[in-house]
């Protein structure tokens, strides 16, 4: 599979954001095209960069991830957003994220295999989308 996907990573924690960016950059077929520290910044960057995938934390100061997801549904309806949750035990927020259109909710600490599976399926999804468009 040679299709590359572009990703925007969003997390208020600097240490988590740099770790996530590093993990993604080390994965085959992934290009991190932007990062953001809160929901508002994420909306701006996603609208500019138009990434294939957004990985966004749920609990953030200012605009949280769920509010940003709600906004992205109208400003960037094609953006595929996976939410990142450190509140593993709280199914309420995960349920809400899925209700708002998240394609997945992945937990912290990050499991590399889980991230890898997400990226692989998004690359396949992009490839299918492109070949469908070409027909």
């Amino acid at each position, binding site marked *: 599979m040679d299709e590359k996907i572009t990703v925007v990573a969003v997390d208020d924690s600097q240490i988590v954001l740099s770790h996530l960016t590093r993990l993604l950059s080390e994965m085959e077929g992934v290009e991190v095209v932007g990062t953001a520290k809160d929901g508002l910044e994420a909306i701006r960057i996603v609208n500019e960069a138009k990434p294939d995938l957004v990985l966004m934390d749920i609990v953030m100061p200012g605009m949280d991830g769920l509010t940003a997801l709600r906004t992205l549904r109208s400003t960037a309806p094609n953006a595929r957003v996976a939410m990142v949750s450190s*509140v*593993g*035990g709280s199914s309420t927020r995960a349920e809400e994220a899925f209700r708002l259109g998240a394609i997945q909710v992945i937990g912290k600490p990050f499991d590399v295999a889980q991230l890898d599976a997400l990226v692989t399926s998004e690359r396949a999804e992009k490839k299918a989308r492109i070949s469908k468009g070409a027909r």
Partner: protein
Amino acid sequence: MAVKFFGQFLIEQGEINATQLRDALDFMEAENLSLGLFAVEKTWLKPMDIHRIQLEQRQKDASFEEIVLELGLLPKAKLDALIQEHEARRVRIGDALVRKGHLAAGRLGGLLERFKVDQEKYTTCDIAMPADLRAPKLAAALVQLLPKFTERLAEIQLKVGEAERANGQTLPDYCAAVVIHMDKGLELLLAGDEAFAARLTAGMLGAPIEDVNSFLLDDGLGEFLNVLAGNAVAIFEKQGERVPFDPPRLGGHSEATAGYVFPLIATHGKAALVLSSIS
């Protein structure tokens, strides 16, 4: 009197020295398998099953046993047998000291009894929350979950000491705080020294400790508090209550000025938990 592990107690009592304790700990580590690896050794579970269980455990407050049953990996009777065999095979610190020749076998029983009496009041489940602390049930849940999560995420074993009213006690260098909005509000502050904060951060990231940026240790503690608060809150959300909490606030506390300080005795570094009511 303070919270301590049996090995610490034995050193204090002059029964062993630190070198002997380290020797016995190394022996234990080499001898003891986790329950998961024990199950794999017995071919009752596959390594892939263990990976699935660990993934689940990182995301919710459920024990190995609960997840094994939930995923249907073993029937209850077989799981019980596994636990029993694992328990019977486990080498404890006292046994390790005896087997390494650092403690006379005949003294072990009596010392364990004395240790039990010494530590009775520090058993986590028995810790009563101070009467004037709001959201006492939430506070108790946080105190009970804290050692479970430090152990699971960073293999830091922790004991929670008796609460003392905050009166300017010096806190370790790194800290983060989260406010949980239940019964007006409860602030949860975790402070740790570099050894504690770096190990916890590395555990949170699933990264080697040498990769952890020492300028971002407050941030690492904040991420840990996110997980802890989220899991404590989940207990109440399961009962239908909506309990929001704020993102972590990093740094800014060199001493405890409000609420209650719970001293933490950790296998790695120094740490303290401060719980205070927010009006």
